[in-house]
Structures are given as structure tokens and as C-alpha cells.
């Protein structure tokens, strides 16, 4: 092994390490967006970085949050049995975990019932065909209860629809009011008036109007879902609207002047100048909107008894069994987790679409 080759070998491995670290640093932006920021120091240690420095990083991004969670769980487990409600003691983490398992079991059992329903149906149909009554063959969907998982999916679908409508309404309005002072002046009082209204106040109005207008019920969008979704829309469009207007209004004046010199059409101006520079704020608005929408949705479902997690919570409250509180807590934690995940998804999109923070 000559010195030369040794040196060159080391420099090659140095280069590899440099590349590796560059990759890790690029990835870390995404990881932190996804809430997995604690992976970065671990990856760096694995790549051969100084462990001491990285352990400090790790402590900040992983150990402290975990300590917070552990402390919370301990306090909960200690304090819960102290409070006696009319449904028994408040459930601790163990009971809630147990009920989460029970809900999963319920889901599995319901799926089994569904399978046996279809088996019976096939049997009946086969019998009908065998007896020469092909006109009696019926294919019907299973009519069981929505399980906890079904309710989660329903809620996600509802909030997605409501959020899409809100975005489709708020972004154009926001751009218009950011670009045009008169339009902004006309819109402003309405925004200020409707922004503070609670979803629960919108709900009866929305219910009446949707029931009257939305007659042609589509299989995929039952009336109840549309009612919940429109309620979500009415409450979640304001942050997007306000932030879009703000983002559009605060475009660099030089850019606008360049656009004027080049005599760009309005559409080109919006697509090439306005949107790119307003995008970060638009996404901030969307993120806020989605958070509000998710929160509002649960309340709307609870009050209107529309399918979804809100109905699950209300039904359990009405059941008043000794497991009800624990089941409601499972739902609360689920709502929280999903809300957090939605926020992270929006944050990731924001990072992906924003030019400034990644360059």
C-alpha cells in the first residue's frame, strides 16, 4: 500500500462522505417536514459523524418530546382513577389502549359478518339459478354498521371535499382582492362579518339549503356528506382567502413593473408573477384552513348526526356504557393524530412548492 494510493483512497472516501452528508442534509429538510427530524442525527451518526454533537441534536429532537409524552401518560394514569364519573372512573391509558383493540376487533367482526352476508347472497343466487329463476338473482350491498375505521374514512372524505370547495372559492377571490383595491374594499366587510361565525350556527342553514337544492343524490356523495362538507367550507375558507389576498398584495413592486413593461396579459401576470410569489402565503392559508376544517367537521358531524368520527363520539356518549369514555378518548386521540398528519402533509406541500425556503 503506497502512501499515494492511501491518500487518494482517503480523498475518495472523503468525497463519498461529503456526498453522503449532502444527501442527508437535503433529506433532513423533508424529514423535518414529515415530523421525522430526529432521524437526521441518527443518519449522521450512522454515516460516521462526530457522535457527541449529533447526540445533542438527537436529545433536542427526540428525547425531550418523548419525555413530554411519557410524563403526560404517567400523569394521566395517576390522575384518571381519582375522578369518579357516573360512568365509573375516568379511563387511564391502559383502558384506552384496550378499547382501541376492542374497536379493531369490532371492525374485524363486522368484516366477517359482511363476508358471511355475501356468502349467503351467493348461495341464494346460485340456488335461484339452479332452480331456473335467473330473474331472482340479486346483488345487494352489505347493510352493516360503519365501523370506527369506516367513520375515519368518511370524515377524511368529507373534510377533503369541503377543503377542495373552500380552496376553489377562496384562492380566486383572494387573488382578485389582492390585485384590485375596489374588490378588496367590497369583500372586506363580508369577510369580517362571516369569519367569526361558528359552524354550529351555519349547520341548520346549510342543512335546509342543501336539502332543498341538492336533490339529485349521487351515490358517492350522499346528502349528509355534502351538508357536512359545505359547513366545513364555510368555516375554513377564510384563512386561505385572507392569506392569499395578503400574499398577492405584497408582491415585489419591481416584478409588477417588469410585467407592465413586457405588457403581459392578466392571465400571464397571474400565472408567472403573482402566483409564484404569493404561493408561500397561500399555503400558509391552506394549512390553517385545513386545520380549522378538520376541527369544525367533528362538531358538525356531532350536531347533524352525519356519518363520521363526530357521530361516533356522540353515539358512544349516548350509549353511556362503562366503555364509552375510553372509546371516546380513542376517538379524541385519533382526531388529534389525523389533524397532526394533515397539518404535516400541508407543511410538506408548502415546502415543496415554496421557492424561498428550499433554495
Amino acid at each position, binding site marked *: 500500500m503506497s502512501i499515494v494510493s492511501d491518500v487518494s483512497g482517503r480523498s475518495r472516501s472523503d468525497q463519498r462522505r461529503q456526498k453522503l452528508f449532502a444527501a442527508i442534509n437535503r433529506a433532513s429538510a423533508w424529514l423535518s417536514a414529515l415530523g421525522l427530524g430526529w432521524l437526521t442525527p441518527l443518519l449522521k451518526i450512522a454515516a460516521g459523524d462526530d457522535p457527541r454533537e449529533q447526540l445533542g441534536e438527537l436529545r433536542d429532537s427526540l428525547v425531550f418530546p418523548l419525555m413530554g409524552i411519557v410524563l403526560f401518560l404517567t400523569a394521566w394514569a395517576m390522575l384518571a382513577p381519582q375522578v369518579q364519573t*357516573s360512568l365509573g372512573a375516568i379511563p387511564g391509558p391502559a383502558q384506552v389502549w384496550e378499547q382501541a383493540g376492542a374497536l379493531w376487533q369490532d371492525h374485524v367482526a363486522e368484516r366477517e359478518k359482511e363476508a358471511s352476508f355475501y356468502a*349467503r347472497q351467493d348461495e341464494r343466487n346460485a340456488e335461484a339459478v339452479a332452480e331456473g329463476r335467473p330473474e331472482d338473482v340479486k346483488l345487494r*350491498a352489505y*347493510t352493516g354498521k360503519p365501523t370506527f375505521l369506516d367513520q375515519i374514512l368518511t370524515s377524511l372524505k368529507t373534510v377533503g371535499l369541503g377543503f377542495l370547495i373552500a380552496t376553489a372559492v377562496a384562492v380566486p377571490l383572494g387573488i382578485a382582492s389582492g390585485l384590485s383595491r375596489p374588490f378588496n374594499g367590497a369583500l372586506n366587510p363580508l369577510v369580517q362579518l362571516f369569519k367569526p361565525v361558528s359552524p354550529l350556527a351555519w349547520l341548520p342553514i346549510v342543512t335546509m339549503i342543501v336539502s332543498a337544492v341538492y336533490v339529485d343524490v349521487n351515490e358517492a356523495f350522499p346528502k349528509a356528506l355534502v351538508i357536512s362538507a359545505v359547513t366545513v367550507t364555510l368555516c375554513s375558507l377564510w384563512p386561505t382567502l385572507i392569506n392569499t389576498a395578503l400574499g398577492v398584495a405584497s408582491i415585489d413592486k419591481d416584478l409588477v413593473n417588469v410585467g407592465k413593461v413586457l405588457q403581459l396579459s392578466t392571465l400571464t401576470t397571474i400565472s408567472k408573477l403573482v402566483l409564484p410569489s404569493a404561493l408561500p402565503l397561500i399555503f400558509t392559508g391552506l394549512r390553517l384552513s385545513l386545520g380549522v376544517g378538520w376541527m369544525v367537521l367533528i362538531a358538525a358531524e356531532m350536531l347533524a348526526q352525519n356519518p363520521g368520527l363526530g357521530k361516533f363520539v356522540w353515539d358512544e356518549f*349516548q*350509549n*353511556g*356504557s362503562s366503555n364509552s369514555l375510553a372509546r371516546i378518548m380513542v376517538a379524541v386521540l385519533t382526531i388529534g393524530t389525523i389533524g397532526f398528519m394533515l397539518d404535516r402533509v400541508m407543511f410538506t406541500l408548502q415546502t415543496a412548492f415554496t421557492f424561498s425556503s428550499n433554495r
Partner: protein
Amino acid sequence: MAPLGAQAEMLDVEKDELKFGFIKLTDMAPLAVAYELGYFEDEGLFVTLEPQANWKVLLDGVITGELDGAHMLAGQPLAATIGYGTQAHIVTPFSMDLNGNAITVSNAVWELMKPSLATDAQGLPQHPISAEALKPAIESFAAEGRPFNLGMVFPVSTHNYELRYWLAAGGINPGFYSPEDVSGQIGADVYLSVTPPPQMPATLEAGTIDGYAVGEPWNQAAVFKKIGVPVITDYEIWKNNPEKVFGMTADFVEQNPNTAIAVTKALIRAAKWLDENDNANRGEAVDILARPDYVGADAAVIANSMTGTFEYEQGDKREVPDFNVFYRHFATYPYYSDAVWYLTQMRRWGQIAEDKPDDWYADVAKSVYRPDIYLKAARMLVDEGLIDEADVPWDSDGYRPATADFIDGVSYDGRTPNAYIDSFAIGLKTGETP
């Protein structure tokens, strides 16, 4: 899950995917049983059962067609048909059960009642307890300047009429309705208001109401939670009183005659199963009802009344074999006389503001209660060997024999409603308006 009898000709149902609403009460049992035991499927029906938030939402759901039918208070189809509260022609081919309710008071009220109650040899209160025992409590509340509030589940509910009957029989005025004032508190000694059944215990606990009339499991729940004491069952107020019916709109029944018969068939079978062999299946029924998608309360609470006992004060458990009747005593047959009784109570308390002739009562009963559908369904079941000939009152003219099995001993004959209305000490009489 094989059907018991020979597989007969299936009815050609016009609509086979149906959605029925219910309220989380044990007397929705025929619906749950018909679904779980496959009776609906045997009739070629694919039914979705959906719990509803309260009676108003449920009724609106049926009227708008969102629900094809529902577990209803017996007064609901009648009130809707005569246009009290809402206007819609609703009919019922099937009566769901007899009895099943009770009146519960808070612990504080019970303490005030207790000294005046007669006791039996074991030192337990003698039943039935008259509403007169409430008077010390009402007076003590009045001295403190507090209104005495009672909850019931709906203005046209069985519970409202039973609670008023009991109070009036004890000389307490529960208040009147008038077209201008629908609170039902005109001239009242105690104030009745509406609370949805599942929220009764919580509302009692919060002190908003001091007692309530409700179906099971919410009276036994108060005992379990140690927040109140049931003082009387409706069985003691009126022995074997009709309670819930299965309601559908008249339009639906007209457009889907076979569907209505098929649904009735499945429900009759479920009711029979519930009462079979001296309530032998009640344990299994309790397990079904305890599931979160039906009633969802703890099995022990539901079992308390479903298995023929009823617990009053903590530990004071008594035999009430007929607390819930689903099939015996022709419970499922839609008797006109049941409908007429509800109408008389609506008139007595002013929900029907003006006098009506006797034949008006009979006509309304005939337009809402549909024994013709019931008898078709029953005939088919007898032919299929699923029920006995003797289980059905084939030749009934729709009126049960006159009875005086009420707490105040007043005799009721459904053929003479006006005479019955005039026989009460407290209540509107012929010619009176609220």
C-alpha cells in the same frame, strides 16, 4: 341461521334496500333481532338500521324519505297525521311492545318523598307509589323559590302522557297545552320539558331536572349510577299499555304494499322470538342490544328490565315479569283502541284544542293503524308454520275490551272517548278550551 319453517314463496318486494331509524332504547329490540337473526333477509329485505339523535330528527327523517321507516312513539304517527307539531300522514302496521317505561326522581326528591310512604312488612315502600307523595317535595321546592322540573322525551310521547296521568291521579296539575302556548306548562304545579332519552341521567345529575319519565335502560342507569330512584313503572300506571309502533309514511305503504307486509312479517317473527318459551331468549337479546351500534349500554343495565325484574331503590329489586312485553297479550297487533287512548290524552291536555265527536277518534285511528297489513303478514306466517293461529286476534274489531287497570281505577273504553275524557278530575272536558 337457516329459517325454521319451509321456505315459502317470497313476496315480490318493490323496494328491497331499506333504511330504518331507531332511538337507543331497549324497545327497539324487534328491529335489532329481525336484523341479527336474518329475518329481514329471509323476506328478501336488505335493511340498514341507523340510530337517530332524537325523536324529532327521526320523525323528520321518515317524512323526508331519508328513512323508510322507524321505531316511533305511538303518539308520533297520530300527532303527525292530525297535524300536531308537523303534518304528514304516517301509518303503522305493527305495534312494537307493551310497557317498558318508568318514572325516576333524583335522590334529593326521593329523600323528601320517603317519610310519607307506607311500608310493607320488610320495611320497603309499598307499590304503586301515588304522585301524592311528591307533594312534600314540591312544597319544599316552592319554599326555596325553585321550580320543580320533570323531563320527558317528546311532547307526544307515551312518557309525557304517562307522567301527566300519574301526576293528575295524585292530584298534581301537570299543566296544559294551548295553540298559542305549546310549552304544556299552563297552570302547572310541576314543569315538564323535553330531554332526549340518553341524556336523561346526565341532565338529572346536572340538576336541570328533578325527575323524568323515560324508557329503559335509562331508569336502571340512574340506579346503577346512584343518581336517582325509579318510583313507579308504567305497568303500574296502566297495566299493559301500548308503547312504541313501527311507523312508515302512508305514501310509502301505498307505493310498496308488499314491502310493508314483508317488513311486518320480519318484525312479528322477531317479537315472537323475544317472548318465546317464557322469555328464554332474553339473555341473547340483551347481548345483541348491548352492542354499541344498537343500545350500547352495559349488558347488566339492559338485562335488569329485559329479564323480568326491575330495581327501584338500590337493592330493592322486584319481579315485574311483564315489564317488557313484545309478543304476549297480542302486543304486536295495532289496536284502534290504543290509538284512541293517545288521542284522548292529547285532547285531555289541550294538544287537541277543540272538542271532537267520537267517530272522529275512530276515523283517525283507522287511518293511522293498519291491522289489514298486519293480518296479511300474520296469515302468511301461519301458512309458513312460523307462528301459531292462536297468536293473532283474527276477529278483533280493533278495540280491546274496556279496562280499569289504571292507577286511579278509571275505566277506559275506546269506543266512547268523549265520555272517558269527561271522567277525569284534572283535565279538559267537553266544551273546555285551554
